[in-house]
């Protein structure tokens, strides 16, 4: 018991120590003049800028970005799972849809930003659809190949134990594919952040991506870094949330290195 709590303490304390150490060294190096502080601001001035952001438009930006990620991610990932199940399980749907989906897969979300602006204007729909595009493909391809790769012995066992096709799909194929699906979901989460920043940098008036660019024009590197760090923090927090959810939804994958739910 003592050993477990000391491991937990280490897991919390060591990252905090390493982060604190990094910023302290950076601060000292800047103050003794090892780098140009107008280009790489001191951690203390970034912190001041963050304070300014928190009081100013920061929360509006943060919530706009979070909302766009959430909307695009939910739509893109849901479509990815639904279509992945359909193309993975039904050969007719696979033959019908796979060529189209494969055609879209190499197109990066970034390339679609001007198109989305032309179609949907500078509103929320454009941003959410870019995020959804980025999120769809990893989830689709992982779901698709996951349900297609269930070992024959598992399917046979299910049949011999009296399960019909519907029950086999629900209780064998989909649970088996869930480790693949979760890998896709986690990959997409990272891509959603990339996509939202690009979308907000072209034709937006709020959001962390917009704030980075606005700070750039105002040559406020400290504000820029504050926004960048906010994106990083939001991403780390989301991943933490994701893993906590995965632990509850797919507890049997707890020992599976591929998903890293622990």
């Amino acid at each position: 018991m003592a050993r477990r709590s000391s491991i937990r303490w280490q897991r919390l304390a060591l990252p905090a120590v390493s982060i604190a150490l990094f910023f302290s060294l950076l601060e000292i190096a800047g103050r003794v003049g090892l780098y140009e502080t107008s280009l790489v601001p001191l951690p203390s001035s970034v912190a001041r800028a963050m304070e300014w952001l928190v009081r100013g438009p920061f929360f509006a930006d943060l919530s706009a970005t979070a909302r766009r990620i959430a909307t695009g991610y939910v739509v893109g990932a849901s479509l990815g799972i639904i279509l992945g199940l359909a193309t993975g399980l039904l050969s007719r749907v696979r033959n019908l849809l796979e060529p189209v989906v494969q055609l879209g897969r190499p197109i990066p979300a970034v390339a679609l930003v001007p198109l989305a602006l032309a179609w949907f204007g500078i509103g929320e729909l454009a941003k959410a659809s870019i995020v959804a595009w980025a999120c769809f493909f990893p989830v689709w391809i992982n779901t698709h190949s996951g349900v297609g790769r269930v070992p024959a012995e598992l399917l046979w066992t299910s049949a011999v134990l009296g399960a019909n096709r519907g029950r086999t799909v629900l209780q064998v194929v989909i649970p088996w594919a869930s480790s693949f699906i979760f890998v896709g979901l986690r990959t997409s989460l990272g891509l959603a952040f990339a996509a939202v920043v690009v979308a907000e940098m072209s034709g937006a008036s709020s959001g962390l991506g917009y704030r980075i660019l606005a700070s750039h024009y105002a040559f406020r590197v400290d504000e820029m870094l504050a926004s960048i760090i906010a994106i990083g923090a939001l991403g780390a927090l989301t991943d933490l949330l994701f893993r906590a959810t995965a632990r509850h939804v797919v507890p049997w994958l707890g020992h599976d290195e591929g998903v890293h739910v622990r």
Partner: protein
Amino acid sequence: MTSSEEGLRAVDVSLDYGGGTLPLEALSSVSLHVRPGEFLTIVGPSGCGKTSLLRLLAGLLAPSAGFILMRERSVDRPSKEIGIIFQQATLFPWFTVAGNVEFALRSQVADKASRRRRALDLLDSVGLREFTGAWPFELSGGMAQRLTLARAVAPQPKVLLLDEPFSALDAISRSEMHCVLLDIWSQRQISVLLVTHDLDEAVTLADRVLIMSHRPGSIAAEVAIDLPRPRIQDGVRTAGFEKVRNEVAGLATDLYRASRPAPVTNRHNPVA
């Protein structure tokens, strides 16, 4: 119904694996009969088609020629009457220990509470009662196989087919599994067909041992094992075991040697 019509039979069954890089005949004119309540083992060299034969008998593969009959009815798809345990692990990792057994009870016990009761009884019979709520990945190899066994008999099959299920276990777990399997076999009065390459295992368990030849596999000999049961007491084989085992081993060695295919010369090997 006469006794020859009961049980599970293969009649002149052949199996060709066509279409691949090397089309080959895996099984050639195999006939066998698993009689009701009988414990049958099949031994054979690796690659002789033992696994294919079991899949045919379970209705998972279709023979190229011949018939598989269960009580005189053709077996052309998997059914609950014929259970099978594969060499590979097939526990469902997303169900708990009890959940795995309940999965197999689902189609016959509609009520959730009585399904749970039946599952617990089955787990009891293989000594896994305390592990009801555990995940399969938390079990040892022997425990996992006991769970697989409990799950396989849950739908009350008439015949249970086993494909080298204990080959990955250590010697102690293996003999423990032999006892569990023999208990289940005698209590449930099912027929068991176990495929193995371990002659000790074959002689320890079986009423009859069938010896297969090299590919294309066919039944080359049949030996009835008349040793009284139990054949192992407190981990020691009873008198007479060695003699029978050596007879089977001698016969198997001769048959394997006689049927071994000619060595293939390798054109691409510069040393040869």
